[in-house]
Every structure is written in structure tokens, then in C-alpha cells.
């Protein structure tokens, strides 16, 4: 679907990416920063999956009666691996935040900066 010459799905990805980036940069709460990172990751995943889609494409499984065009399966495989990586990064980040909270009693960046 296009809107004033732009692919609407790509525009949505860019908007989502910017929302995530804003959260990561502007929010003081560390968990919100990590969620912002996750939103950015989702935007990139959505972009990659979308890039493999074609208008009227079928699932790429060749059985009797199926005919081209097929959608590309490789972006799906890449995104699946990307999700695994993203989950691991999130897990490590949350573990670190738990340690920060246990030690300092806060997860707000502005309060952490004031500590000696």
C-alpha cells in the first residue's frame, strides 16, 4: 500500500523505530530504556519481514497445486534468529538492572548519576 509515493509499511517501521529511540534516549527509568530498545528491535524485525513479502505471494512450501509467486523465507529465518538475540540481550539487561537496584536501591538514571 502506498501513500503519497511512500510504502506505508516502511513508514510505519521508521515511525516505530523513532518511538523506540526516543524512549531509549529520553526516559530516565532503566526498564523503560530497555523497552525502548525492544521497540526499536521490533521495528527492524518488521522491516526485514516486510522486505521479503510480495503482493499476492504464497507461503514458500511447494506442494501440488501451489504456484509462484512465493514470499521469501530467508527474512523470516533471519528475524527468528534476531528475536533470539534480542531476548538474550533483554535478559542480560534486566539481570544487570536487578543488580543495580539491589545495590543502589534505584533504577532512575538521574538518581544514579547523583550517587558518589
Amino acid at each position, binding site marked *: 500500500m502506498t501513500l503519497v509515493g511512500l510504502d506505508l509499511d516502511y513508514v510505519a517501521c521508521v515511525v516505530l523505530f523513532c518511538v523506540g529511540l526516543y524512549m*531509549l534516549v529520553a526516559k530516565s527509568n532503566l526498564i523503560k530504556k530497555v523497552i525502548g*530498545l525492544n521497540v526499536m528491535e521490533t521495528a527492524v524485525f518488521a522491516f526485514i519481514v516486510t522486505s521479503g513479502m510480495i503482493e499476492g505471494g504464497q507461503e514458500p512450501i511447494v506442494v501440488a497445486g501451489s504456484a509462484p509467486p512465493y514470499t521469501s523465507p*530467508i*527474512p523470516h529465518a533471519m528475524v527468528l534468529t*534476531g528475536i533470539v*538475540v534480542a531476548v538474550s540481550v533483554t535478559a542480560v*539487561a534486566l539481570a*544487570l538492572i536487578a543488580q543495580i537496584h539491589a*545495590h543502589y536501591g534505584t533504577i532512575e538514571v538521574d538518581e544514579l548519576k547523583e550517587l558518589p
Partner: protein
Amino acid sequence: MTTLGPTLLPWLVALPLAGAALVPIVARRDARWAGGFTLVVALVTTSLASVLVAQLASQGPFSADLGGWAAPYGIELHFDRFAAWTMPLAALFAFVIPFSWRYLDAPLPRERWAPFYALMLLNLGGLLGFSVTGDLFNLFVTMEVVSLSSYALVAVAGRGVAAWAALKYLLLGAVSSLLVLFAVGLLFALTGSLNLADVSVRLAAAEPSGAALLALASLAVAFLVKAALFPLHVWLPDAHAIAPSPVSAVLSGLVVKVGIVGLLRVLQLAAGTGISLEPLNTVLMVLGATAIVMGAFLAIFQDDIKLMLAYSTISNIGYIVLGIGLASPFALIGAFVHVFNHGLIKVTLFLAAGAIIHQTGYRTLSDLRGVARRMPQTAAAMAIGAVSIVGLPPTAGFVCKWYIALGAFEADQGGYGFALVFGALFIFVYYVRMLDAFFFRSPVRPEVADAVEAPWSMRAPVLVLAAACLVLGVLGGIPIGFVEPAVVDLLAALGR
């Protein structure tokens, strides 16, 4: 003999990764076994790497197709002269591991030893995978293996301040990894291939487009964050200073080089596309020269020796990036050699600093006055490392910095040659401060006045590495001869 290379190549990556999975099992009965086992795995991997380098010398480049699917559709591991150039870095692991044996007594409880060594091996496996992969998506995956294990290693010694440093590192690192993933997706959409060689051929065949430029620019920025090039360095000083010393050595000496190797991959990809590399080279030269001066300038004000070494890494990454940006044969040879020599020198310095911190319990220059009286051998190693990193002959640092300076004049960019000398002066100032405090002041702390030399398992790696700094300075032709083929290949790809 003919098929030995392709058969052995997957093991180069698989061995350390499998070793990492086995460490907790080996350590079940006694945590101390983990260290010995890790050293064995690191040594076997290093010997494997040297066999592969020998195979390359006798038969030329070779590749292995994983899972039996041929490139460009299957996943390919590729061992060429470029990959061979990064192999000596892996050998440094074999020095860091025995140093960790006794060092870990102080900062880590026994039950955390197995995770520590497992993470070290994961890191090694990721680094080797990153060097030999011929696949764009695997480049991302191996980079993430390196990054994730690095985040965890920074925080491994516990306590809140380490977790905070690790999280700052993670947030910036994750954004740069995301840029790499975005670029990989974009390049796949543009070319329909993930094989590095194939992508660069197809990019060259296609019309130069804005999307290709966007993909290559994202890759370049992402790798410059990983390399901690000024002003993208903000995550580095805390993470490298707060981590346990063996981890600092690995992060500063090896892990930042992932960014450099990645940057060179981007240059190879971009070479045939018709996209002009001039703007990128100018940016690299300006930022490289700024990093040299700013890194060294900020290091002058540090009292903590590890923080000082971390800022020195920022300045030295500047040298490497400046060399790449100048893109003349001499400058590239200097930059390539400095990737290894800086690794060697920085591992020496961080391990020597670690030995001093372990024996005295202090880490600032003002507390460590006069430490050379009680620990003469470690302090001497530190002095050799310091002279090397300043770049004075006859040490390892002189060779590369001399070549980069020659390269600046060769590329008709003499001004950058002066930036380089100016940076070296700053670096000289802060290492003189350190040597003055260690050698010519009287101890102010009783722990320093009564300190004893570190145990041999810590002292031996430091002394051998310091000796290597001298040997590679006197015999500077050896590393230059080793990297020359890789530089020739890169220059041919760049069409110069």
C-alpha cells in the same frame, strides 16, 4: 593433505564454543579445574589457527560450506589472508587465562569461576567466528556472541558499579548491533544474497542507490561504535576500567578490534559499488586524529591506572582508524600491524596493572607510589609496555606508528602526521607520570611498602608479553611481512 584446511576450519569456531558449554561440567567437582581446562581449549584453538595459517601459505585461500550447502546459498566459512591476519590476536587468550587463575581469588567467589571461564571461551569463539565468516548474517550473529559475553564479563565481578558500567555498554552496544541487523536486512532486500563475496559482486553490478549507501553507512557507524572511535567512545572507559583486569585486557586488546575488522569488511563491500569512499575516508581521518589527541588528553587527568589505560585505548583506536582513512599502502600496513601490536601491548599493560592491583589492593597513582621497589619485575614490564605504547624505538609500538606517519606523508596529508606526533607527546606525558610515581616516589601506603611480587602464574604471562613487545620492535619486519598480503588484497579491492 589437500582437504585438511576446509575440514579443520569449522573446528576453529566450534572448539571454543563447545569448550564453553563443557566448562561448568568440568568445574563441577572443583572450580579450579575450569581454569586448566580453559587454557587447554585456548591452546588447542591457537594451534589449530596456526595450522590453518600454514595451510593458507601452502595452498592459498580455502572455504568450508556448513551443512553441505554450497555458497552462495549455504553458509560459508572463508579463510583468506585477511582472516589469517587476525589469528595472532587469538593467541593472546593463552596468556590471559593462566593470569586469571590466581587473580580471580580476590574479586570472584569460587562458584562464579566456571561462568567466568565459559564466557571467556564464548568470547574467543565469537571473535574467531567473526574473522572467518563469509556470511553477512553470521557476521551479525558472531558479533552478538562477542558483545553479549563482553557485557556479562564486565559485570561478572558483581557489585552495583560494575552492573551500571555493563548496562551503559549494553545499551549503546545493542543499538549498534541493531544498526548492523538493519543493514543486513537492507542488503539482502537489495541483492537477494547474504554471502559477503556475492553481495559485493551484486552490489557492484547494480546501480549505486540511496538504499545501498544507507546500508553501508549504518554498518560503518555501527562498527565505529563497537571500535569506540571518539566521539562514540562514551561506553568504553567505565566498562574497561571496572571489569576484572583479565577481562579489561581482552576487551581493550581484542574486542574493540571487532569494530575495526567490521569496518574493513564495509570498505571491501563498498569498493566495487561506485559509491565514492572519499567522504568516509575524510571522516575517518578527522575522527581518528581527534581520537588520538582527545583520548590522550583525557588520559592525562586520570589517577586510576586502569581508567588511564582505557583512555589510552581510545587514543590508539584513533591511530588505527587514521591509518585506514589515509588508505595509502604504508598507512594501511601501519594500521593492520597496530591492530595486533596494540592488542599485545594493551594486554601486557592491563595484566601488569592487574598484578599490581592484586598484590597491593590499590589502583590509583597516588596510592601506588614507589611500587617498583617491591615489585621490580612487574613494574619493568609495565615500563616496557608504556614505552611501546608511546611508540619509542625499539619497541612494538614504534613500528606501526612510524608506518602510519609515513603513510600520512605518502598520502600527501602531512597535517595528520603532525596530529599523530602531537598525540604521542600527550601519551608520553601521562606514561611518564605513571613511571615517575612507580619508580621515583617513596611509598605512602603500608600495603605498597610491604608488597611482594605476584605469584609466577601471574608474573610469567606478563614478563613473556613484555619481552614480546621488545622482540616485535627489534624484529619489526616480521609482523609487516605477515600483514602485507592482507593489505595488498585490500588495496586491490579498493582499486588503488
